[in-house]
């Protein structure tokens, strides 16, 4: 995907345009990130309308506070994903707490559910953000049920390389379980 490899220049310019109050920039921001935002929110909340609501909140937040993003801290995409994650998990916790108050389930269940949703969303983000060759290898081996030799043949790489990609891809994915330890690179942090 060309989009995620966009140079940070795009991020900086976008921030300046948003800060300037350029409505066209807001449209472009939406076009680039709406499916990411909506997809993550949907993974956490499992509900279309709730995901719509989070999408509205995320873009409103960026539009109202464009300076909250610091290009030095990383790509805009990562920041937007982190913001989405935080707001969606917040919403999930709020609705689950409300359900709890009405006598449904235990606090442990709530925590487990929140954590589970949070990890699943982070995993989605990692998959969409990982280098395309790793994603392609995982896609073949997992969704298309190809073994690593077939995967290698399909991708036109050596068997060594196919094994390496599958292992590296899973290693990246497994960091979804790390709840935003400072400096955790591949995810967007964002502790549940």
């Amino acid at each position, binding site marked *: 995907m*060309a989009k995620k490899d966009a140079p940070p220049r795009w991020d900086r310019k976008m921030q300046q345009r948003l800060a*300037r*109050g*350029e*409505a*066209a*920039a*807001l*449209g*472009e921001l*939406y*076009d680039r990130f*709406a*499916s990411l935002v*909506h*997809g993550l929110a*949907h*993974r956490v909340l499992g509900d279309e309308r709730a995901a*719509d609501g989070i*999408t*509205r909140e995320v*873009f*409103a937040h960026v*539009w*109202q506070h464009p300076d909250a993003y610091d290009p030095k801290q990383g790509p805009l995409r990562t920041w937007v994903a982190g913001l989405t994650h935080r707001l969606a998990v917040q919403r999930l916790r709020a609705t689950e707490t409300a359900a709890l108050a009405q006598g449904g389930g235990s606090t442990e269940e709530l925590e487990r559910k929140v954590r589970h949703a949070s*990890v*699943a969303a982070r*995993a*989605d983000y990692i*998959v*969409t953000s990982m280098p395309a060759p790793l994603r392609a290898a*995982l896609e073949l*081996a*997992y*969704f298309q049920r*190809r*073994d*690593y*030799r077939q*995967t290698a043949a399909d991708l036109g790489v050596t068997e*060594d390389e*196919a*094994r*390496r*990609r*599958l*292992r*590296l*891809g*899973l*290693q990246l*994915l*497994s960091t*979804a*379980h790390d709840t935003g330890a400072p400096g955790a690179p591949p995810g967007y942090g964002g502790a549940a």
Partner: protein
Amino acid sequence: MNETNRFEAYDEHEGQDDGKDREKDENQKARQDPEAPEGHGRHGPHAGTPTGPGGPGGPTDGGSPGPAQNPGRPPRIPLPRASVEDTGQPLPPLEELPEPPPLVLEHPILKSLLGAWALAACSAEETAAVEDHLGMCGACADEALRLREAVGLLHPPESLDLDPGLRTRVLEGCLDRRPPRIPVPEWAAPYDAETARLDALLRDMGDAEWHAPVRLRWFEADAATSRRTTVAGVIAHLLTVDGLVALALGLDDPLGEVTAQSPTPAARTEAYWRGSHFPPTRSVRAPWREQSHDLVRTVSFTGGGAGKLSVPYGDFDLPLRDAMLDRAFECWVHAEDIAEAVDYPYEPPSPRHLNRMIDLAARMLPTAVALRRRHGLASPVHGRHLVTAGEPGRTLRLEIEGLGGGEWLIPLDSPAAVGSAEHEVAHVALDGVEFCQLAAGHVSPEEAAAGQVGDREAIRDVLFAAASLSRM
């Protein structure tokens, strides 16, 4: 009934008598089979097996005519080699059967296999070797566990068919909270929305769908015309014609080095198609989208002053704001062509935007009527002298029904005349989307479902003029 069905039905019919006979035959044979003489078995591989519960030819009794099952008969097919069972010697105990030699792999190889192992994507021997190793190597066992857990996190991607209306709602919500200092002009909003909608349609399309055939249709000299291309070819068409607006705004021409014979939409498109060595592919999406974003951005800055700017289309000019509406309209029309080609659903524009597009077409109608008249296609202004500019003249009331509709008074005698209810000679009522299909050249004027009252000639002139607004 379509061709295929007819063919099948015919086939079936043809075979019917024959088939019945054959079936009878078969049944007889089956009945005879058990007591059939030996030679009958030549008919099939299953002939030698007794008719078990599965019947002859059942899936399980196929290839194993073991002598033990069939004591009375010698094996018809010789066994490939003498086996231990045939020697009369005692069978070796199971555990002594020679196993395939265990795979011996070096630690780095085993480690490199962990990902494939976790995904169940290596051979049985490798799996066994890895699992043996995990019992002995703590580091690998830890990693194996971690990777197995990671596999559980792989989900098919969420279906990302975002509600196209969400974009408008989200953006409006934002702009309410913080009014923009540089808004998108209201006349550019339809283009902004339609390009976003088309882009969302393109996002999920597979490589093959980009090459799905599309027939562009329009009206030329009162006759339906068409041109074959592909989905990617349609986007290339939008890119090159949107490029007319880009040029007028001082942006780069997407045609680049390629020169068109004339600066018309069709000539530019043909030049672009010819100019590329390969048929357009999905790679055309990015430049098209980038240009559409640039257009929205640039017209936001030119703002109010842009009213004076006009966009040359070769044969005619349109003021910038109308050109942007025209491009929005074309974007929707071609998005429908594409959606139809790949069998996706596609909705009409929002009523507000549809209304602006209809308004543009209605405003262009008087000129189109005059143009057809000049070519002898529309009825002459019988005995009446042309109306003085700015004066009311014979008028057709165009009533557009449905969301986004409204009423328009179309002056018939001259583009410079003013439509007037007092001078109404005809009344046409049409659904909004139907009217747009007509103006896009997708519905012929004769077939357009229009309610009509009054001067038939005037109605015919206006409906044909609407179709004549279409172009490639």
